[in-house]
């Protein structure tokens, strides 16, 4: 039995809007082993993004514990959490979230600016991350000069460059055409198999989910 990298212990989450309390996740129990490639599926509004955000440490559970590695991240302070994210988590978003005023190279370099790496080391890391995603020749391009698929590959390079333990992807193919989506999925599979990254991916695209090892379904806030 491989030890669990991510553990959700009876996690519930509700949002309060005005005086109304909206329950989103109810008593979720989840173990994700190291090296796993998990696809979280489910209809729109079922709480997939919310669940991913809790694991990412950018949102906090209303009840229960989120444990990643040995760390109970819901106990961390805001600044400790920020530092933790920068070391252990790589993010891939549906809309890429690149900084429009930075080149592909600079976007990938961004998370490294928080490390102690020298400029030279940073450049080596960025170059190898960009070569993994096959965009060495687009380093000086700005996001608006790239296609959607290329932008997402830059975003994957950015998620990869800090060598994180866990990569979290929220609908990474949601905004892409078929061919680009296929490329992105091949890339994520490689990160899992070749670079041994644990990946949790939210998607409602069955073709994307096929590439994962495991699929779990969320429905109305419960894992089924």
């Amino acid at each position, binding site marked *: 039995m491989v030890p669990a990298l991510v553990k959700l212990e009876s996690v519930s989450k509700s949002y309060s809007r005005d005086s109304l309390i909206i329950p989103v996740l109810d008593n979720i129990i989840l173990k994700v082993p190291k090296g796993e490639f998990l696809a979280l599926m489910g209809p729109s509004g079922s709480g997939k993004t919310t669940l991913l*955000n809790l694991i*990412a440490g*950018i*949102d906090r559970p209303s009840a229960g514990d989120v444990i990643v590695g040995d760390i109970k991240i819901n106990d961390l302070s805001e*600044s400790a959490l*920020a*530092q933790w*994210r*920068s*070391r252990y988590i790589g*993010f891939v*978003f*549906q*809309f890429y*979230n690149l*900084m*429009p*005023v*930075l080149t592909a190279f600079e976007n990938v370099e*961004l*998370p490294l*600016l*928080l490390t102690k790496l020298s400029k030279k080391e940073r450049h080596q890391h960025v170059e190898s991350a960009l070569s993994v995603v096959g965009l060495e020749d687009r380093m000086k391009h700005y996001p608006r000069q790239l296609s959607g698929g290329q932008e997402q590959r830059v975003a994957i390079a950015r998620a990869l460059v800090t060598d994180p333990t866990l990569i979290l992807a929220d609908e990474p193919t949601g*905004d892409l055409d078929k061919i680009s989506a296929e490329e992105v999925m091949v890339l994520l599979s490689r990160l899992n198999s070749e670079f041994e990254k644990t990946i949790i991916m939210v998607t409602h695209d069955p073709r994307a989910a096929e590439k994962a090892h495991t699929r779990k379904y969320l429905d109305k806030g419960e894992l089924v």
Partner: protein
Amino acid sequence: MWVVKLILRNITRHKLRTMLTILGLAAAVVAFGVIRTLIDSYYAGADVLPPDRLVTRNAVSIIFYVPLAYKEKIEKVPGVESVSYGNWFGGLYKNDPKNFFPNYTVGPGFIDLYREYIFEPEQREQFLKEKNSAIAGQRLANRFGWKVGDPIRLTGQIYPGEWDFVLRAIYKGREPGVDENSLMFRWDYFDDRLRQTTPEMAKNGVGWYVVKIADPQQAPVISTEIDALFKNSAAETLTETEKSFTLGFLAQMDAIIVGMRIISYLIIGVILLVLVNTMAMSARERISEYALLKTLGFGPSHLIGLILGESMAVAVFGGLLGILLMFPVIGAASQFLQNFFSGFEVNALTILLAMTFVLIVGITASLFPIYKAVRLPIIQGLRNVG
């Protein structure tokens, strides 16, 4: 370093918006500078007056005479070095009100009391020799193209008739701010003619006395002593330093000056609004970028650096451009205004004030965006995409 790079890229993101903001700031700084300089030059004449000169005038009003006989009595007051006197003439050059400038008649020794007027020694000699001679300030001479030796005719408004003089000396101010817009002529010429032509107007009185004292510290005591001499006489006097006399005279315009000061501060408020608006627009557009930076682990200090840096950079660009433009604008304005103001020049304090306000505005405009960005929950910021 990367923060600086990001700030510069963010500034050039909406080039037109940034340019308009910078131009708006610059225009406001120029307006601020022009108004401050106007106010400064209005008071500049009083600022350069020496503290050891008193003016004694009729206690009721400057328009009433002080008897000529007072001179000897004032001279005897301890601490008084010398006494002279002047009398407002108020003639018009070419009988045209547009040509207005101060002109008055001065008693013996008057120009000796005004060390801040610089004369060519021969010209000064000439003025003292010839009864019908006049002297004029450099700016006044420039205004009408007068040269030494030119005849000048003034049309009397208070004292009837045409009055003819010969310009014998042109004086310069020792420092900026010294009045160079006046014309003076000799008391004996004035008095003799009145006695011949309109004897009913010769009153054995003068408009005011100028009293040079040895020790400026003694000004209040000596003033009180002079006024005590003429207490309960037909013409009581009021003595004060020439500086406070002038300031009191300038105070007649106080409401306008206060209004101008208020406008100069309102302009600072306008600068603030312009920048606040631009910074708020930028911050709103960048919500998802701030959320991304936070997701990646960047902390409040980074966001503060980015936003404050951008606000300060725009403010400082605008401020510097405004200060650069201030000089030619004020230079051009002084061409028109030199007849009325002496020392119409940008002073260091105005620049310091403008720059200080610009920095305060830069900081203030960043406060709300910083507060929003730092407080923003990441998940809310990320939802802002698409």
